[in-house]
């Protein structure tokens, strides 16, 4: 598994440097939504790694190496979650440093967790499709999801919704992720199993 994570990281090393630069830029901009961009952007790292896998037909070889299909799938989830966590930490550090000089607003743990939850949801929804249809077709779906999310956000903003307490929202989010993450991994393993790697 560690070999797979290193493979993904080293494959996208050049893009990762650009990501790091952009995350710092997003963090410097004193607008809370910019850190959301940085975190959601890093959630797309496994898709870039998958694109390299598809291009080189890595999985044809990988299924013959000492890796199970579950490990091949799981490594992409871990890579995505790890990239988001690193991105959130970097944003927090940059914002905290700026806070010393009274520039921008410091980030809160709840704010960061909410943004990471959005990124994790994106990973969980898109990866099963990427594993089933490949990155090229899967990216179309990604654009569709982003479009639907923006539209939903716009309508929800206009709608008068009843007030929900933060604790209720937290419990709902934890329950949703307890189903979403294992459910998505299960679907990805099934999708990857159906895909003809050879």
């Amino acid at each position, binding site marked *: 598994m*560690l070999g797979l994570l*290193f493979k993904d990281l080293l*494959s*996208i090393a050049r893009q990762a440097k650009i990501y790091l630069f952009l995350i710092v830029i997003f963090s410097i901009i004193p607008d809370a939504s910019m850190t959301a961009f940085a975190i959601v952007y890093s959630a797309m790292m496994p898709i870039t790694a998958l694109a390299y896998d598809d291009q080189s037909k890595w999985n044809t070889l990988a299924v*013959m*190496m*000492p890796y199970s299909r579950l490990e091949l799938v799981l490594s992409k989830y871990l890579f995505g979650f790890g990239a988001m966590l690193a991105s959130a930490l970097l944003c927090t550090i940059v914002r905290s440093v700026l806070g010393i000089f009274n520039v921008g607003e410091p980030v809160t743990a709840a704010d960061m967790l909410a943004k990471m939850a959005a990124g994790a949801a994106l990973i969980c929804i898109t990866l099963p499709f990427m594993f089933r249809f490949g990155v090229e077709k899967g990216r179309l779906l990604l654009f569709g999801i982003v479009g639907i999310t923006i539209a939903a956000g716009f309508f929800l903003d206009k709608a008068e919704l009843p007030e929900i307490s933060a604790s209720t929202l937290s419990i709902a989010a934890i329950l949703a992720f307890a189903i979403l993450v294992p459910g998505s991994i299960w679907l990805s393993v099934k999708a990857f199993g159906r895909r003809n790697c*050879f």
Partner: protein
Amino acid sequence: MNAIEIRGLKKSFKDFTLGPFDLDLPEGSIMGLVGENGAGKSTTIGLIMNALRSDEGTVKVLGIDNKGPSFRAVKEDIGIVLDEAYYPEPLTARKLGFIMKHTYAAWDEGLYEGYVKDLDLPMNKAFKDFSRGMKMKLAIAIAMSHKARLLILDEATSGLDPIVRDEILDVFNEFTRDEKHSILLSSHIVSDLEKVCDYIAFIHKGRLLFCEEKDRLLEDYGIIKVSSSVYDSLDPACIKGVKKSPYGVEALVTKSSLPGGIDVEHTSLEDVILFLAKGVN
């Protein structure tokens, strides 16, 4: 012990069926899997490695059923090289070495660096800038650097120039000096197989036509060039393949069942395969 043991293996696709067939690769030997493009060689390798699910039959690799839970551990002992080197393009030989160190428990960094040096490969050049020959040499270096007991090579030498091919065949010969090491080498370059293999398995249109010791094949078969009338007088059982022309008949025969008085020429592996394939057609 057999390094590979196949029994009743069968896989059907929409327009192609492979098998059913049996095949044994004895430990310590090199077997050449030969056949035209699309004959089923790569499919056989996919089935051996359980990358493809078979419809029928069983495969044991290094004594372990390839569908069982223990097969994952057996993969540690198998070095695999496919017809292309399927590594992500931004990686270098050094980075791949680092990745493989965290993939194979028995990865030997010194051995890998030795192969990379001996095969004249750059350590820090991106894989995308490698020539095909360099890519295949790197794939072979990786396959041989985790103390594998079995090498499975699918068209690893095709598309390479004769000098690189010869270099790689020398590496394979060196590998099988250890009697516990075995190689399954698929290729349609028969001259390569003739150089290094102990056994030849010939797959034609999804059917295994024979699996024999190479020396025995060359010893048992011969070529005769006779007139049509002499040919017609021969026992059909000794004729394995035939080419007829207005000038006479050329046939592949089993020497032992041929009557005396007919000149028999030595045959090459390529001739045996060509005659047999035409005979089946």
